[in-house]
């Protein structure tokens, strides 16, 4: 069979790496917890194991999938991000989950920004959506920071979710939005960060 290679992506703070058996305990802990409530969880150990196996198989079948997000400095896993499209998904999705206790550090913003640029520039995606539970306010807010807008005309998975449409490659290139995302990521990395040559009030 034609094996798929999972690319390794890096940002300033993060390494995105394909899921392996060593990542299963963190995945299991997350999907056993209330944290997974917007992703069909909490799940039983059996369901969790089958889902994790499917995360890996997704890469083989689609040629893209979910990466594990690791902190560069400690290798600690903090969540998952990537492209996701099971059958019945109307469009290709950019999906994310941050593990319990790892939120609020801007990891999801940094990881989604990185993976979105990869999917656009290397995989040739012309756009993407994220299917969000309207009650998942953290994710809705993240989508907005990433420049997504709610697309009420788009088909959703089961009508209980909203489709948030990502800006396409052209809209992102050299945009104020892209600069704003980069600036926000830089501030998470270094709260005292001051960009040089920028007008600051």
């Amino acid at each position, binding site marked *: 069979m034609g094996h798929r290679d999972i690319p390794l992506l890096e940002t300033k703070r993060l390494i995105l790496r394909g899921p392996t058996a060593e990542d299963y305990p963190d995945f299991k802990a997350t999907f056993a917890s209330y944290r997974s409530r917007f992703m069909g969880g909490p799940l039983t150990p059996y369901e969790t194991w089958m*889902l994790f196996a499917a995360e*890996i198989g997704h890469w083989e079948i689609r040629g893209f999938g979910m990466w594990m997000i690791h902190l560069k400095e400690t290798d600690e896993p903090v969540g998952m991000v990537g492209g996701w499209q099971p*059958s019945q998904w109307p469009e290709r999705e950019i999906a994310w989950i941050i593990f319990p206790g790892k939120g609020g550090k801007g990891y999801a913003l940094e990881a989604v920004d990185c993976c979105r640029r990869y999917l656009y520039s290397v995989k040739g995606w012309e756009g993407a959506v994220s299917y969000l539970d309207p009650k998942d306010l953290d994710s809705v807010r993240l989508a907005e920071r990433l420049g997504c807008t709610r697309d009420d005309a788009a088909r959703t998975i089961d009508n209980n979710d909203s489709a948030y449409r990502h800006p396409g490659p052209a809209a992102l290139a050299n945009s104020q939005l892209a600069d704003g995302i980069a600036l926000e990521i830089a501030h998470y990395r270094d709260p005292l960060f001051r960009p040089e040559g920028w007008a600051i009030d």
Partner: protein
Amino acid sequence: MTVQTPVTAIPEFEAGRLRYRAPQMDDFEPYHAFCASERSRGVGGPYPHRAQAFERLAGLIGHWALRGYGRWMVADRETDAPLGVVGILYPEDWPEPEIAWSLFAEAEGRGIAYEAAQVARRYAYETLGWSTIISCVKPENTRSAALARRLGARPDGHHDHPMIGRLHIWRHPGPEAL
């Protein structure tokens, strides 16, 4: 860009009338038909939604990456048409690794499952070097129970699965008995 190791490497071979190969997207429609049908009742189904069948198909591949063994898409040696899913299954909440078989409707009545289950058992004993293996069968799945018996397996207790319910454990004869 650094490229990571491959997702998984599934051993592929031909034996008897059948081809044992990695599941692929081309298998989706027949596999979905199986998952959505009454035939999947023995494996916790029916799973009516396409998303469920996709997740299970992807899971077949991921199982190999996580355990180092798994289930093959068993295909017709001549036409490569998929006939069923046979191999070694060991998810969580499972008593031990088992030889599992799921036959698509059109493959029925030709001894395909019998043939493939023997190949999977030989793989467990000879390639993986195991000394014992079981098969789990739902009590009402009399046809699979008959196949387990035909394969020489004997009842060996049960396992209460939190989602699928009671599973009868059939223990296969060990490598020395074969």
